Structure formats: C-alpha cells, structure tokens
C-alpha cells in the first residue's frame, strides 16, 4: 500500500534518499566538475600564475573546448549547489553518494583537462619553464585516484539492500 511519509519523522530521510539516489550522484558529479574548474581558475591561473590565459599553440578546437568547459563548470557549480539544497529540502541528501559523485566528476574533468585539453589540444601547459613531465604525471594520477575513489565509494553504497523492517529503513 502507499502511505504518506511525514517530513519530520526519521524514516523518511532514509527512504527519500533511495528515491533520489541517482540525483545525489549527479549533484555530486556536477559539483566536482565545478570545483575542479574553480580550483583550476583560482589556484593555477590567478594565484600561482602557472597556467596561461592563452597559449599560441592552442588549436581552434581547444579554444572551443576550453570555452565550453569554462561556461559549463561555472553553471555546474551553482546549479549543483541548488540541487544540493533541493535534496536537503526533500530530506533525500545522501552524503556518500554525493561524495562519490564529487570524486567522479572532479576526477573525470581533471583527467580530460590534463590529457586532451593540455596535451592534444595544446590549450596551455600546467607550468612554463620547467620540466613538464612530473607535473603531468601528478596531475593525471591525481585525476585517476579521484575517479577510483568515486568508483569505490559507489561500490560501498548498497542501493537496494534494505528490506521492509530493516534496521536501516527504520532510521538507524
């Protein structure tokens, strides 16, 4: 039978989040992507001045890709914050699922930036006037580690484990 779940009662928190499990993940992915874009801009462009605004080696497709990701990462940061607020409002926030998304989104964007954008499209390098290989290694390994962390976290969260009458379902 169907029943109305009371907002204030505890169990709803644990049932709503199953309903919004995918939304939790995507909210995290968008936030991770935005976060990495933000760190890239603030730390590497503005504070360290390692990244350059424009590199003469940049291909046209690189310029397009950069613009798209620049715009999308700003949008993703703000949109995912509102999505997160919406999940809280629906009492459906699920920290582990969200965090898994943050790692996945952040890692995927960083890997794309470090391989395709920096190397293939020649957008700009991580740093100029230094031996670039260790920087690239650390950059891309960090990205892979983040993706791995995201995948592992997803694996740890059981989506359909709860049964009626489960301790988890009852809010423990």
């Amino acid at each position, binding site marked *: 039978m169907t029943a109305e779940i009371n907002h204030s009662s505890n169990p709803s928190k644990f049932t709503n989040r199953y309903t919004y499990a995918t939304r939790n993940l995507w909210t995290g992915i968008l936030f991770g992507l935005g976060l990495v874009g933000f760190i890239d801009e603030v730390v590497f462009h503005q504070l360290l001045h390692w990244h350059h605004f424009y590199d003469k080696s*940049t291909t046209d497709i690189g310029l397009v890709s950069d*613009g798209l990701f620049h715009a*999308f990462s*700003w949008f993703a940061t*703000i949109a995912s*914050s509102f999505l997160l607020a919406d999940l809280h409002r629906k009492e459906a926030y699920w920290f582990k699922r969200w965090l898994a998304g943050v790692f996945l989104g952040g890692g995927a964007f960083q890997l794309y930036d470090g391989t395709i954008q920096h190397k293939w499209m020649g957008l700009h390098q991580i740093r100029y006037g230094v031996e670039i290989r260790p920087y690239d290694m650390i950059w891309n390994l960090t990205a892979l580690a983040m993706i791995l962390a995201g995948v592992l976290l997803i694996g740890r969260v059981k989506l359909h484990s709860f049964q009626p009458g489960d301790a988890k379902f009852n809010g423990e």
Partner: protein
Amino acid sequence: MGNSHSHVAGSEVNLQLIMAIPFLLAVVLYLAAVVVSNRQLKKQWSKVRSVLWMVGILCASMAIIGPLAERAHEDFAAHMVGHVLLGMLAPLLMVLATPMTLILRTIPVRSARRLTRILKSLPVQIITNPLCAASLNVGGLWLLYTTDLYVLMQQNIIIHILVHIHVFVAGYLFTMSIIYLEPTPHRLSFTYRSMVLVGAFAAHSILSKYIYAHPPSGISSAQSEIGGLIMYYGGDAIELMVIFIFCFQWYKNARPRGKVFIIKTPTHV
C-alpha cells in the same frame, strides 16, 4: 589636431546632450508610471525595482555618453568596459526592474489586453526564444570583432549608434529569454534554457580569448589583450549573476508542493 578638436568641442557637447535624452526619458517614464500606477492601484511598486532600473540606465548611458564613452574611441579597454556595461550589466539590472509588468499595471485594461496580444504574437515569440536571442547577442559580437565592422563603427556615427543599440537590445532580449520575471506567455523548460545559457556563455568566453589573440583591425595586440581579459572576466562576473538567478528560479519552482512524498512503504504489522 588639438586645434580642430576645440572647434568641434561645442557640437560634441550638443551631441552628448542629444544622446542623453533617451536615457533621461527612460528614467522619467519609468518613475512616472510608478507614481501613476501606485495612485491607481493603491499598491506600492517595489522601490528596489525602481532603483535597479535607474542603476541599469546609468550603466547603459556610461557606454554612450561621458568620459568612459569618450575614452572608448581610442582605448579598446574602455570600449570593452562600456560593452560589458551596455550589453550585459544594464540589461540584467533592467530585466530585474520588470518594466513590462509596470507598463501593464499602468495603462488601461483594454490597452493592456492589446499589448498582451502583441507579446503573445509569433514574431515576439521567435525573437524572445533563447536560441534566437543568444544568436543575435553573441553572433552580433562575433561579427563586430572579427570583421571590419569595428573599424566602420569608429568612422561612421550612424553605424556607431546602430551597433550600440544592437548590443543593448540583444543583451536585453537574451537576459529576458533566460530569466522569467515578466508575464511570459510561452514558457520554455529550464533544461532548454540552461543549455542555451551555457552555450552562449561559452561562445562569449571563446570570443574573448579569440580577441585576446587576434586583435580586431586597428587595435594593437597590447590593447586587444587587455580588452579580451576584460570581456572574459567581466562576462564571467555577470554570467554568474544570471546563472544564480536562473538556478534560484528553478529552486523556487521545484519546491515540493503539499504532500508529494508519497512513496511505497511497507504495511505496518
């Protein structure tokens, strides 16, 4: 050159005064509508909106008259600051001031009906479609900075004025096609609008970097680099505000209404 400058100085002041008229008119008409409709409806129009309108008009006017506009003739950075004000910040502030709502509450009901019918018409629907408005907006800028239009604009006063009108109108149309504050007969989904928003924002960023690297004709590369940076980061700041308002509207719109949390639960034994 200095000599000829002092000769035209008088006519230039006159020209500035003439150019100031539309802005003054916009402020006076808006405030008059506020006073009239407040008296008619015995309901106060938001003071915040009136202030937003006036600040918006001020931003737009700075690109056309006064010291910034003066400098824009020889200084590409000043030109770019003017364009960010005229094409992005002023439209945003003025959209937030909801002038159409104000007009509709001020004019007689019959005229308001007629106006609403025009707003619902196909041409208006097409021109306020986000995709169309975004193309007019960013497409116009691509034309301006990648063709000889920029040089023509500096030489011909008519083209100069037309370009500025286009930059403002296209910026306004684009902003109002994304952020719905006024009566909007044909509402489009948040998903569609967000895709156009990101696309237009991206095209703006790409053009900024393109200008940085490829100076428009008659502009030194040192100037185009500063201009490109101003366009890029100035655009960022204002797009962030647009995105924030857009997402906030989604958040309000998506609020759970009543008891929507009806999901399957086990029967209690």
